């Protein structure tokens, strides 16, 4: 009969396990949320096509690995490059003409929803809706922690990747003049260009970075879970995480993701799996009611 690692009543073990689960889930959210937040920080709109970049990255990796027989380094590199390029292309085709005509970011938001439908369905009509899985390029083997809980190497790697990418980005944003330019451009593109900022280049760059981050997220998701055209849809949770953390704030995106991951796992584990999403959304709304600009969002007092 079954042999369990956890003795009944060892609820500490379960708690630890759920925390590990939450951190691991949160780190994948973080990879997506950071790219999403980055685009938000400059163009001030929620880029719903971000999930699409993630899918593009995932598929490129999949096909390079499977059909071209290349190694993970090449596949990963091409997939980052491809998703980054797709992000730039999306910006050029769909967003640039709009932001040149108007300041209202709602239009960008709708265009991004359109783009996400387009990207999803390009995959549906070309390669079909089937679920695919990447080979185990990132080890998912479990490591048992003294019989209390298990953690997979994958969890550690994704957490690490999230932290590394975040730190690099944060450095760029805070320490370089380009980072400052991103924040200035976020407020007003026209005036930023009056300061000598090549705004289009800056935006393309931002999208490229966001695209590559999405692609990393996509590969992680595809390995951990599965790859299919609608995979981008789960980024909604990452959006929620970015909002909890404060839109446009990269540390916020990471902290929000971790909090969300933990909240989901602890709710499902200790309150009710049926109410998991309800609790998550409730949590989101409560956070916003207490801090309308998110945990790390800046509330710049508006002068009248």
């Amino acid at each position, binding site marked *: 009969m079954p042999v369990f690692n956890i003795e009944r009543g060892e609820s500490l073990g379960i708690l630890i396990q759920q925390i590990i689960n939450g951190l691991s889930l949160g780190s994948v959210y973080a990879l997506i949320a950071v790219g999403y937040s980055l685009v938000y920080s400059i163009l001030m709109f929620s880029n719903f096509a971000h999930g699409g970049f993630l899918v593009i990255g995932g598929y490129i990796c999949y096909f390079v690995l499977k059909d071209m027989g290349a190694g993970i380094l090449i596949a990963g590199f091409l997939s980052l490059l491809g998703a980054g390029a797709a992000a730039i292309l999306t910006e050029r085709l769909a967003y640039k003409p709009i932001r040149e005509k108007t300041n209202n970011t709602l239009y960008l938001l709708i265009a991004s929803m359109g783009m996400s439908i387009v990207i999803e369905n390009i995959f549906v009509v070309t390669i079909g809706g089937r679920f695919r899985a990447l080979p185990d390029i990132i080890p998912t083997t479990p490591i048992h922690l003294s019989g209390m809980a298990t953690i997979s190497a994958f969890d550690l790697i994704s957490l690490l990747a999230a932290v590394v990418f975040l730190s690099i980005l944060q450095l760029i944003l805070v320490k370089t003049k380009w980072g400052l*330019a991103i*924040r200035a451009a976020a407020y*007003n593109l026209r005036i930023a260009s009056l300061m*000598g900022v090549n705004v289009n280049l800056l935006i393309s760059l931002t999208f490229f970075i966001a695209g590559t981050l999405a692609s990393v997220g996509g590969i992680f998701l595809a390995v951990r879970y599965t790859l299919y055209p609608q995979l981008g849809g789960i980024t909604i949770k990452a959006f929620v995480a970015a909002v909890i953390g404060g839109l446009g704030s990269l540390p916020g995106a990471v902290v929000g993701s971790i909090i969300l991951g933990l909240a989901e796992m602890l709710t499902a584990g200790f309150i009710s799996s049926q109410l998991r999403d309800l609790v998550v959304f409730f949590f989101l709304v409560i956070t916003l009611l207490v801090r309308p600009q998110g945990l790390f969002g*800046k509330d*710049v*007092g*508006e*002068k009248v």
Partner: protein
Amino acid sequence: MNERPILEIKDLHVSYGAIKALNNVSLYIEEGEIVSVIGSNGAGKSTLMQAIMGLVPRERGEIFLKGEPLARKSYQVINQGITLTPEGRQVFAPLTVYENLMMGAFSRKDRDKLEEDMNWIFSLFPILKERQQQYAGTLSGGEQQMLAIARSLMSRPKILLLDEPSLGLAPIIIKDIFEELRRINAEKVTILLVEQNARQALKLSHRVYVIQTGNIILQGDSKELLSHPDVEAAYLGLRKKSAIPCD
């Protein structure tokens, strides 16, 4: 003299849809000059500045910088040494005063000189030094205007365009700023100035253009124009109907 003027505008036309904002505007600025443009509300002064900066597309006409065609994208214009202090402040509200000034210096290559210039700016506008870490959006109106001017100075332009720099400033500050403009000009910075405060502008500048509903209707030496018989009319901008009824 054979040398071309530093900035030369030929037959410039700009429209906003049906509204014709600039109509066949030609003007030039010699190196080291201060030239002012005056005219009433809606004459097209700001449009002229924005057209130079590439912020609005030119419908027709050409702009030359030292005889070479001027770039059309604003970031390229900046890199050619032209800077605009835009009308109505337009500081980066969510950035601090310090960060706004750093943005002003964005296109500068000689980044080791920034510290020095920052000090120069702070000596010009001591209040900005006090407010270095305040968000620009929360400054008072006049402080924002000072910041906007300071921000353009941080780029160390060869040609400085100013759109109503005296807006919302106390007289004493205006005086200081105009003095400073004269001093900068002495260091070979060419200045194009749009002012409602026409008397002050005329006193400061070498030459002046008067613009009315998109056309240049008068130009000449500032000192002469100050005593020109039509100048009174030029002040008014030759409006058909007074802007505000005076019963």
